[in-house]
């Protein structure tokens, strides 16, 4: 640990509005926080960094009244305080954007934003007024969403925007953002940052958590690093850089790797031939006559903005969405009409984008989630073999470096990033021939990100065909041999691994930042 930084509040010109003193939190046998001190400064942004499972979300949930600390105190405006619930904390002016979305999918955007705080009049709820306010909020976030659409009909990124809008609508003094940008594209992040600067100008204090370190550095005034439930470093923005964060977070520097070389590509494993996918109404083409080949050993990255059709393309290839026309071939065999299960058996798997909705079974344990896609192969005689399953789960945990107490714990007890690793591990362990990953790095720390890309490179070397999507340009330029840019359902450009960020962004229809 660094001795130059002492994890205690030091004299500061700006006043501290909210702080945690010696806060510890124990979940059963896991000590998530071990006596943490943390300060939120008035009208400034404090960024909280740390590996997956470091305890960031837990600390934020304590500050926002979701959890009660096992020991330690919370101090608001200089007075110790105990929050009974998150509503209580909200009434004290603290609101939180959770890492895992907490929207009601069956309700409209408007109803979600005003849930529990409906604008009531003598004649019932004033929907018109609610809608007006929603539109204002969404305009501020530069997002074109009708307040009357149901949340389940929105893309993940749009849902995240709604979540942000809901937190903004409360007009709180202290706003906690736990990975608010994990599903947003670069331009949307820019918009969010503009909003954050406006909020700061109004005196709102902000806590910002992100695994996109460079991004967080753009906006923050202070940096705090958590490691294994301890606060290991604090510094104001002027004194730090990326390297400082990485050093305190994981102790060494990571890069995201480079495309694996030194072997020839094999035959075409995945062949996509003029595939078209339409939206639910059938009017709009989400994927428009798209063709694409991935060879054995090749890693292809698809970059695009939200709404470019990446998720729809991958879901169609995996068998979740039907192709309106076109063909999908795996190892020369037409699989356009086969079921998801058949495709998995043939060796084509998808790691979905939204882990809560599509990736995990929350009622099951970590181990049961990891073996779910592979159960057929674990059957001996009539039943699944406990021994085989245990080996399988242990292997998957080791390969994807999931940080778990025991595979018998419920999946929800893992930190967000570790849940993501479980989703990857589940599909990876089916020994696929081609793997599709939709935003595989969502919510994982840079160590784990490097780990995932290393895994992809390793798989490719052994002849796996890899196709992944990302909204972070930096991740295109890691292990991918080929970068495809998607725009409005079509391929708008294709590059080799020697391309520059600016060219990728220009091809995606995105205004180049800086």
């Amino acid at each position, binding site marked *: 640990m660094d001795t130059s930084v002492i994890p205690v509040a030091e004299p500061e010109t700006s006043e501290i509005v909210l702080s945690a003193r010696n806060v510890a939190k124990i979940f059963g046998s896991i000590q998530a926080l071990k006596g943490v001190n943390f300060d939120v400064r008035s009208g400034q942004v404090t960024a909280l960094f740390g590996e997956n499972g470091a305890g960031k979300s837990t600390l934020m949930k304590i500050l926002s009244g979701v959890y009660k600390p096992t020991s330690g105190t919370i101090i608001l405006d200089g007075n110790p305080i105990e929050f009974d619930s998150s509503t209580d904390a909200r009434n004290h002016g603290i609101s939180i954007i959770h890492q895992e979305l907490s929207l009601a999918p069956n309700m409209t955007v408007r109803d979600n934003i005003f849930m529990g705080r409906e604008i009531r009049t003598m004649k019932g709820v004033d929907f018109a007024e609610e809608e007006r306010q929603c539109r204002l909020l969404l305009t501020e976030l530069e997002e074109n969403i009708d307040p009357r659409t149901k949340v389940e009909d929105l893309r993940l990124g749009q849902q995240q925007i709604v979540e942000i809008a809901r937190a903004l609508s409360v007009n709180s003094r202290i706003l906690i953002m736990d990975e608010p940008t994990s599903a947003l594209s670069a331009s949307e992040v820019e918009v969010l940052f503009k909003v954050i600067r406006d909020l700061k100008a109004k005196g709102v204090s902000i806590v910002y958590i992100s695994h996109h370190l460079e991004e967080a550095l753009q906006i923050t005034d202070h940096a705090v690093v958590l490691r294994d439930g301890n606060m290991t470093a604090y510094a104001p923005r002027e004194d730090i850089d990326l390297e400082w964060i990485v050093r305190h977070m994981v102790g060494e520097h990571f890069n995201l790797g480079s495309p694996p070389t030194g072997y020839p590509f094999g035959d075409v494993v995945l062949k996509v031939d003029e595939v078209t996918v339409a939206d639910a109404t059938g009017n709009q083409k989400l994927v428009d006559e798209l063709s694409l080949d991935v060879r054995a050993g090749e890693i292809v990255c698809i970059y695009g903005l939200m709404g470019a059709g990446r998720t729809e393309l991958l879901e169609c290839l995996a068998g979740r969405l039907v192709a309106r026309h076109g063909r999908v071939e795996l190892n020369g065999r037409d699989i356009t009409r086969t079921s998801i299960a058949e495709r998995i058996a043939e060796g084509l798997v998808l790691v979905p984008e939204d882990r809560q909705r599509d990736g995990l079974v*929350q009622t099951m344990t970590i181990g049961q989630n990891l073996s779910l896609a592979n159960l057929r192969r674990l059957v001996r005689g009539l039943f699944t073999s406990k021994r085989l399953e245990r080996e399988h789960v242990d292997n998957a945990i080791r390969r994807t470096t999931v940080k778990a107490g025991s595979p018998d714990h419920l999946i929800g007890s893992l930190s967000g990033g570790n849940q993501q690793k479980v989703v990857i591990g589940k599909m990876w362990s089916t020994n696929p021939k081609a793997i599709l990953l939709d935003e595989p790095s969502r919510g994982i720390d840079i160590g784990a990100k490097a780990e995932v890309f290393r895994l992809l490179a390793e798989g490719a070397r052994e002849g796996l065909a890899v196709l992944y999507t990302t909204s972070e340009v930096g991740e295109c330029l890691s292990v991918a041999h080929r970068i495809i840019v998607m725009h409005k359902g079509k391929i708008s450009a294709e590059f080799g691994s020697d391309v520059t960020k600016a060219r990728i962004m220009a091809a995606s229809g995105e205004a180049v930042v800086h």
Partner: protein
Amino acid sequence: MSSTDVSKMNPTAAKPKINIANLLIEGRAFGALLVIIIFFSLMSPNYLTISNLLIMSSHVAIYGILAIGMLLVILTGGIDLSVGSVLGLAGIIAGFLMQGVTFNAFGVILYPPVWAVTLMTLAFGAFLGSITGVLVAYLRVPSFVATLGILYVARGIALLITNGLTYNNLGGNETYGNTGFDWLGFNRLFGIPVSVIILALLAAIFGIILARSAFGRWIYATGGNQRAAELSGVPVPFVHICVYALSGMLSSVAGLVLSSQLTSAGPTAGFTYEMIAIAAVVIGGASLNGGRGNVRGTMLGAFVIGFLSDGLVIIGVSAYWQTVFTGAVIVLAVLLNSLQYGGKRL
């Protein structure tokens, strides 16, 4: 009873403290059962006798068999409201077949032997269930609605076949070679009623299926998160059809046992039994949202309900009060459940 604990079948054990949560909830159902037994034994000397326990158990058998099917459906996140009606209709079908099937064209009456009657009845139950399954799996009809429809249709068919009357003569006839139907309901093996043995067997079989087979895991996954299950290659439509078909078949088993116990089959048999089955599953700690629950708990739930209602009869509580008490127990159980799962949210 079989081991059906979900968390137990898990790899890499942290053995000593595996299912404390499960033990607690089952402990509550078990505690309730003990309270009921102790209370009624104090109230009536006849309650805690072997013969009364066996009689009560043979009543529980009906609820228990229905509840196993209900559990399968509830685990996938659905509900089966048709079990009571299918039970009634199964009895009628068996009764109808026992009376002999007349073929006018040939002028003969065919008396199928009892095993054939049994098989046909079971197949019919499974068929009715798979209709629901197809409705739910492929046509996306909510299970509540689909099974509500089957509830009415089955009851209606039962009334149509019998014209509202009851088949009284299920004993069969020596000369037609179709005797033996009362074996299910009356006979005992080693002093234990056959119906109780059937319940124990079914509980063991389905307990093991849920805990140890891939199909069992698929059921839990489907109820826990259908979308994630689908993307992991779980054949969700197949699972749906299977659970409703199994529930229909188990309802038929219960129908056969009940009409055999009564040696008669009336079109209103099993009226509102679906509610008892749901109650048993819920008291047993299953979550109506799907994905959580097991056979052991459900069996305890069935015994709680059966022993409670028989006890009330024995100590002479009026039928109206019985209904009130049963309702109170159900609410209490659901309350305990929501306490258990409410605190454990992510």
